[in-house]
């Protein structure tokens, strides 16, 4: 049985990774699960320098999901390399580094810095974070800016580039095509959905940032549709994510056209989810007599 998939030049031994920002830098979960069983480890978003992030409260639980406005707290490139890379580089599975910046030049500079680091699996460009004032979502909701960012990073590195798209657009197809044409090797679909919740006792928003990103099982049907539309628009592979809790959810993404999937919010309440998803995909394939996971990709039957 083959579970391995190819995301550009990045080979994953199985189609399951974890979503950026929901798995720290891997090391935090290393005592709870064997990271080398994953398809890849994807780390929290990193920009050039250290970032403190937003004031609290930063997250709030909502029905079948959560809101977050962490504000991309992180150690910056140097802090990451000093503190987390020694652990990550020893893993037998690849690390996908999620990067962001506030200008096109900054994105490219971060990409250049990681290009010089031996052993990185791929770079994921976060052009879709709803929780910071500059950068983030503005690049993901403007096709021209998106092309510029991807093209600049393309020039800055030979590493596989995965462009992580925003769900907050009228149609995802032009963004998917813009990223592909600018040289992206793959897409990640989707980031969190802009949203808000209010505490009626205090009349205050539940997040200090007022609005945040909605994630978890409640966004899954939206994400499935986005993956399906993006897959029809491009030839490059897609990593699908949004609310995956079990193998059935993951297989839905594969059938919609994703070549791999990422488990996000579910890690917070069930750290074993990604491993359970891998085991579940395997037993689904056994049950259906499928020998290669790639046979599932895009296999949804839309005419009836």
């Amino acid at each position: 049985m083959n579970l391995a998939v190819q995301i550009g030049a990045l080979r994953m031994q199985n189609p399951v990774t974890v979503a950026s920002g929901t798995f720290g830098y891997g090391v935090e979960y290393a005592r709870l699960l064997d990271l080398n069983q994953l398809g890849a480890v994807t780390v929290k978003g990193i920009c050039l320098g250290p970032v403190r992030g937003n004031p609290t409260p930063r997250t709030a639980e909502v029905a079948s999901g959560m809101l977050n406005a962490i504000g991309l707290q992180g150690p910056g490139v140097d802090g990451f390399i000093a503190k987390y890379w020694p652990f990550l580089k020893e893993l037998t599975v690849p690390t996908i580094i999620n990067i962001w910046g506030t200008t096109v030049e900054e994105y490219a500079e971060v990409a250049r810095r990681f290009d010089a680091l031996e052993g990185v699996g791929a770079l994921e460009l976060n052009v879709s974070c709803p929780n910071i004032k500059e950068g983030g979502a503005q690049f993901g909701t403007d096709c021209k800016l998106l092309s510029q960012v991807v093209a600049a990073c393309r020039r800055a590195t030979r590493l596989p580039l995965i462009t992580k798209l925003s769900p907050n657009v009228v149609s995802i197809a032009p963004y998917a095509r813009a990223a592909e044409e600018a040289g992206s090797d793959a897409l990640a679909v989707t980031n969190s959905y802009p949203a808000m919740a209010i505490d009626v006792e205090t009349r205050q928003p539940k997040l200090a940032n007022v609005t945040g990103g909605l994630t978890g099982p409640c966004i899954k049907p939206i994400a499935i549709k986005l993956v399906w539309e993006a897959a029809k628009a491009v030839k490059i592979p897609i990593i699908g994510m949004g609310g995956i809790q079990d193998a059935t959810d993951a297989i839905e993404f594969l059938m919609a056209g994703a070549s791999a999937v990422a488990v996000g919010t579910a890690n917070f309440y069930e750290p074993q989810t990604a491993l359970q998803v891998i085991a579940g995909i395997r037993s689904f394939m056994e049950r259906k007599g499928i020998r290669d996971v790639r046979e599932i990709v895009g296999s949804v039957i839309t005419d009836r």
Partner: protein
Amino acid sequence: MLEELVQILANEREVGAYFRLTLLAPEIARRVQPGQFVHIRILPMRDALLRRPFSVFQAAGDNLSILYKVVGKGTAVLSRMQAGDQLGALGPLGHGFTVPKSSGEKPLLVAGGYGMAAMYLLAQRSPRPGVVFVGGRRRVDILCEQEFRALGWDVCATTEDGSYGHRGLVTEPLVTELRRDAKRKRLFACGPTPMLKAVARIADDFDVPAELSMDEHMCCGVGVCLTCVIPVKSADGWEYQRTCTEGPVFDSKEVLWEVPR
């Protein structure tokens, strides 16, 4: 740190809105240190997905117990669960209290409401008894006083409405005690944030060390999501640290109560 599916052995009302939950959780019970917590997945909550953090109250052999107050969705569902039901438990988590030494300072514990739960293991494992200052709004908020006395500790209770013990705030008899003699004392506190802030100020006034267990909203409980951060002094001014990982227990001198501008 590990994850177990654990069985409820007992889940009974203690008093008022407070419940005592006993779990069969051998791996966590064996490892837990005073001030650490467990992150509980309440499976029947359905559309509320996140785990809830609770201090480990007592640990004996394979059993571990929690003292909790029903305050919202999760704790309400939890209070209706029964012996034989299962919960997901992740723990023991966090950085706990420093266990006192027999030759060291005299421990003074300050607890508000369910903050008492975080204190029991500390009192039990301390080689020298001290005083527990426990406060609450009303009589029902004063928990497990007898269990602390049974460990040989003095208990000084205060209620805001005067229905039990001294009338007033828990920090008032603490100040009286420190005025009498503040030498070679160490404070340990767990309770609502305004109480912790008051304890930090008192510790400063009397120049006694204090360890505070902070109560912040959590999501992952293991340091990855960055929900639970508080501003803490650092080499270059201040930084956000995680209550679930660097805490929940912090040195009172390090905690900044507001984010510097």
